[in-house]
């Protein structure tokens, strides 16, 4: 199981942040060519990211590049120059299946030109508009390259004319749609970044809520946010012990030929079993599971 609890954005126009390699708490790193790079620096950032992908020791991290939208002159140039190099590309402002297919088709060409296996580079559509939210299922199903959907709350809130609040109810519909669409398509879901990198309590609250909603992880804009997000997305001891008790009861019942399983006076039905299996898998992947 590949953990995608944290994905750290790093501006692609300056080497300072990624020169020493990724922080250990980052499951994924994103070299950003989009919002953090001004138009006059797009060319230089693209080249810098290409050298960084070749030169920095990224270890076992999942390395992603956020390219510019294909509707701009920068997007196709990004995919042509660096599209074949990372594990995946994040497609910003993704609203329709066409937005994904444009990138996928160009990647097909780039991979073929370079003799790489077709479909090697994965895609993560970033949903950050009202139209994107309403088309989330079609976007999620649009390409076999898709590994997850990501949510961008700042642009989404601006698009619907809303206002970001600490409590976050303005995002509930969009987040629910994105999780449901991603899971219906059989892919992962990654929650939005939390903009205030000094407010760790607010970050933990929002990350915990995202985990409860079914997101697999959350974006980060500062390395200090990573341990907080990991804590929110890692099952605690109580949940792990409960999952273990459920799985032990299932094993015992199966050995005795019984189809009925109960733990603590409550029936264990298939969704309970599935949740227990997921918690154990997450705990093992996170290195916090003890036999």
């Amino acid at each position, binding site marked *: 199981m590949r953990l995608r609890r944290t994905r750290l954005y790093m501006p692609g126009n*300056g080497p300072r942040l990624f020169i020493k390699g990724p922080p250990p708490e980052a499951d994924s790193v994103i070299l950003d060519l989009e919002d953090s790079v001004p138009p006059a620096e797009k060319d230089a950032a693209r080249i810098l990211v290409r050298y*960084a992908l070749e*030169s920095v020791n990224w270890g076992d991290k999942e390395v992603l590049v956020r390219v510019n939208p294909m509707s701009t002159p920068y997007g196709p140039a990004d995919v042509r120059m660096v599209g074949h190099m990372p594990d995946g590309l994040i497609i910003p402002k993704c609203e329709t299946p066409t937005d994904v297919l444009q990138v996928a088709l160009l990647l097909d060409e780039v991979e073929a030109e370079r003799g790489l296996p077709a479909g090697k580079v994965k895609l993560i559509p970033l949903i950050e508009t009202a139209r994107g939210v309403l088309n989330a299922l079609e976007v999620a199903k649009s390409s076999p390259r898709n590994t997850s959907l990501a949510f961008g709350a700042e642009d989404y809130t601006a698009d619907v004319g809303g206002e970001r609040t600490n409590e976050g109810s303005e995002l509930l519909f969009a987040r629910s749609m994105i999780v449901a669409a991603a899971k219906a398509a059989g892919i992962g879901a990654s929650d939005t970044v939390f903009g205030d990198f000094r407010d760790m309590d607010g970050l933990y609250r929002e990350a915990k809520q995202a985990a409860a909603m079914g997101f697999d992880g959350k974006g980060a804009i500062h390395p200090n946010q990573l341990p907080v997000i990991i804590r929110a997305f890692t099952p605690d001891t109580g949940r792990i012990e409960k999952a273990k008790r459920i799985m032990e009861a299932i094993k015992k019942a199966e050995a005795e030929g019984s189809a009925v399983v109960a733990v603590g006076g409550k029936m264990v039905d298939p969704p309970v079993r599935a949740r227990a299996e997921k918690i154990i898998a997450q705990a093992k992947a996170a290195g916090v599971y003890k036999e």
Partner: protein
Amino acid sequence: MGARSGKAGTADRNDAEVEFVHATAGGLQVDIVPCPPEDGSTDGAALEAAARELLADLEVTAGRVTVRDHAAPAWVVKARLEAALGRTGVTR
């Protein structure tokens, strides 16, 4: 041919400000300037070698390169030089 000269990079730590000025003759001149000047950490020879390697790859045979180095590794200098060259019309 594009502009006669091109610049790329920043004065941030671990970055480099690189300028390339085209010439039609006289070969290549590469100057590495540590910033601040008393910074002894810069490996000027390695940075110059990296710059010359890129210039050879791109078949640039004449011109002047100035690298104001802010403790950048060689690959950053190459990236900034490639961007500066690109701004003068020299591309891969």
